[in-house]
């Protein structure tokens, strides 16, 4: 295969050519209530060629059949030639890496029989179903996937990488009359089967919380001081700010560049935010991104000031900044675009007790159901929450959705906890390409004046 790839690259007429091939086998087991929906394996093989020509933009060819690479290169080249717009796409230089990254997994899931995987998941599923009579439905998912990715370029890069991923999602649905509440727990990582064994606690937690939510009142909508837990804080920083740091938002837009100008104050001095795709043991980590750029820590906000952003080679060149190793693609079916890896709010010095002690009436919001951003506007929903009354955590409330304006919200962060933690939950970022594994980290955070939608 290497011969074929290198020959195809040599034969290309384009200024820059890149070939990325992927072979993946994945197993998925899903329980819905007592029914097994599927226990099945899929095989996904394919590739993408990208070309840049002298006077224009990108041409791409995506395919499943990996023979005849030379023909695919020709197709991508011809597509690139269609795209002439007078302005040439430049790529920031990166050293052409040659590397072979293999993994050695404890309890490699490829060697674990389908029956054992199914049994494990069934146990967790039954734990949820039998925990309480009010649990009427569950959704339990086990997934593993092992990919072999090859990236090669006309600049001489040749990187092979093995990419494992294993994960669990356990969701419980509780019902009382017409009221239906859902809670879930998940865990995923670039690990072996052991990562998901012995996690009955997650099943207990999901079922317990779904039942608790049945007796929780819907929060009264309004403005509150809010303390958010590390899990929700992580989603918040990803959605509300992280996406704005992805340079494909600003790089072609002079007005957006004004909004995201380096040196602008975004928050108080206590706020530091970074993205780091090189940290071991985290879901978003790889040694190189999908253009062959080494990953690293990128500070985005330091002491409240905007100091950096995330780049692909193209956005870096356009904005005359350094590439950061954030060009990622969900699979061979897509070209890489600027994506986050492992994004975090750095830890501070305030304990949780100190944080809530001054709050007469507020909300303690936990975990996230998901979030969405449209630049300055964000919206994310917490999985569950509690009222804070007179400096104490009080009754559980539900349907807590936090929405607001990024600029005012970041500036309203007035306390950062001393309990930083990385999330090992599953969770994917969709950005027009379907879900890409990412992770987030944060401590507890307090934000003043948050609008909460509710009753």
């Amino acid at each position: 295969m290497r011969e074929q790839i290198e020959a195809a690259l040599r034969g290309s007429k384009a200024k820059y050519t890149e070939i990325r091939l992927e072979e993946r086998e994945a197993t998925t087991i899903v329980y819905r209530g007592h029914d097994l929906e599927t226990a099945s394996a899929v095989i996904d093989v394919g590739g993408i060629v990208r070309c840049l020509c002298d006077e224009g933009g990108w041409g791409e060819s995506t395919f499943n059949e990996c023979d005849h690479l030379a023909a695919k290169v020709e197709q991508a080249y011809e597509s690139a030639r269609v795209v002439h717009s007078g302005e040439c796409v430049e790529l920031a230089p990166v050293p052409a890496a040659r590397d072979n990254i293999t993994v050695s997994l404890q309890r490699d899931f490829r060697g674990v029989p389908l029956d054992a995987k199914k049994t494990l998941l069934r146990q967790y599923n039954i734990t949820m179903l039998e925990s309480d009579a009010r649990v009427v439905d569950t959704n339990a998912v086990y997934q593993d996937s092992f990919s072999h990715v090859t990236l090669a370029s006309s600049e001489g890069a040749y990187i092979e990488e093995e990419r494992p991923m294993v994960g669990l999602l356990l969701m419980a649905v509780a019902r009382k009359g017409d009221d239906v509440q859902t809670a879930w727990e998940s865990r995923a990582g670039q690990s072996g089967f052991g990562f998901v064994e012995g996690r009955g606690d997650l099943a207990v937690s999901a079922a317990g919380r779904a039942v608790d939510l049945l007796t929780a009142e819907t929060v009264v909508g309004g403005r509150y001081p809010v303390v958010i837990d590390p899990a929700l804080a992580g989603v918040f920083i990803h959605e509300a700010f992280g996406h704005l740091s992805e340079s494909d938002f600003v790089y072609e837009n002079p007005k957006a560049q004004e909004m995201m100008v380096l040196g602008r104050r975004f928050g108080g001095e206590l706020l530091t935010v970074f993205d780091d795709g090189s940290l071991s043991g985290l879901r978003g980590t790889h040694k190189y991104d999908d253009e062959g750029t080494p990953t690293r820590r990128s500070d985005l906000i330091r002491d409240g000031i905007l100091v950096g952003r995330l780049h692909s080679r193209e956005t870096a060149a356009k904005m005359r900044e350094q590439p950061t190793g954030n060009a990622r693609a969900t699979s061979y079916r897509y070209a890489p675009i600027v994506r986050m890896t492992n994004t975090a709010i750095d830890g501070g010095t305030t304990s949780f007790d100190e944080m809530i002690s001054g709050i007469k009436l507020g909300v303690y919001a936990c975990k996230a159901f998901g979030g969405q951003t449209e630049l300055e506007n964000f919206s994310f929903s917490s999985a569950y929450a509690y009222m804070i009354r007179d400096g104490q955590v009080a009754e559980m409330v539900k349907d807590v959705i936090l929405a607001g304006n990024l600029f005012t919200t970041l500036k309203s962060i007035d306390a950062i906890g001393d309990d930083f933690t990385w999330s090992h939950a599953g969770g994917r970022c969709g950005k027009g390409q379907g879900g890409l594994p990412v992770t987030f980290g944060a401590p507890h955070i307090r934000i003043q004046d948050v609008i909460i939608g509710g009753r």
Partner: protein
Amino acid sequence: MLEQLMRSAEQAEVVRVHRESTSVVFEASRLKRSQVKETSGLAVRVVKGGRLGFAASSDTRATARLMRNVLESAEHGDAVTFSLPAPQEALDVVTFDESIAALSIGKLVEIGQEMLDLILAAEPGVNVEIELTRSTEHLALRNHSGTDIDFRRSPLSISVEVRWVKGDDVLITYDQTGTTVWDGQHMQSAERLCRKLELARNQARLRSGRMPVLFAPNGSLVLGLPVMLGLDGKDVLKRASPMAGNLGQKLFSDKLTFVDDPTIDGKFGSSPFDDEGVSHRRNVLIDQGILKGFLYDLKTASQAGVESTGNGSRTLFTPPSPQPTNLLIEPGTVLLTDMIASIDSGLWVEDALGLGQGNVISGAFSNSLSLAYKIEKGQLVGRVKDVSIAGNVYDLLRNVAAVSSETEWVHHSLRVPYIMLDSMNVVSQQ
């Protein structure tokens, strides 16, 4: 492959998909990328020893591994009682148009440029992203009882995103159209966006409180999505849907009728059969507020003791599950202009943020609005910002003030009217 599988299984189904497409992408208002895609795949199901197995592969030559995978999957599969369908009569639904199949990249570029010119003429300061894709898909399904389906689709999909940044003030709005038969509507997305930009030029202030709310077709997905989820036969079976056990009950205003219709020529959700070989038909789900039926595929239907409604839908790597095809909320009798004129002080909902977040299956929604306008004394007076709405559709949709006679196709396969609610709580940061 079918023959080989039938040596060890009682039932078998093989689906083969092949798709080739070309796309052009405009970014920052200029032509940026061009793509050619050619993908294919095989998906297989068997019932062996009464248990269901599934496997899939995008490597169409790996048939030996694929068959091993599906048989192993069946060993661990759940017991099922449904039968894969025998050959059925189906309506002649048009899904293929040679003129779309033959669209050149040059023609796609031309359409994109025309759209760009229109939008930039309306508002020169915006950042426009357009993606145009034409494809030819070939779908084939065969099963052990002789069902042999083979048809082609020619989807043309156009999506546009407009970003307007003025200092800290940001508007992002989208539109998309899709068709499998050339309908001359390719400029519709651009035209709709121009209208939105015009209306958003002025700003207005809105105070929190209860007021009439008019949902434009795009925005009515806020109301429609929880209902769609509640109609999923799987959620009904599991009693996760609040509509479970309520067939025949009047759950909503009699102004609301929801229909799932996969038989409309040229629409994205249309085809003669569903993804399991069951023939497609029009299904009335809610009739003048009364719950008439749910959406089922073969497996969920057999578990519920009913027939499949022909809503079995799948992607290459996932087995079928019930999904809507083309979802229609039927038009009403009130003209949009009259609806607007009737509002003294209210809100027009165009785009909402965070659709689908939260406990949506329960009917609850809470969304901030990325694009909404204030209606004052019967006129749209300007864009309002930092506004959010929340509620539960099982309460709110019991009383609908009006449904328009005009409808629009949005999000590819939803045909929706304008829906006005008399009184809703609106939270404004102003």
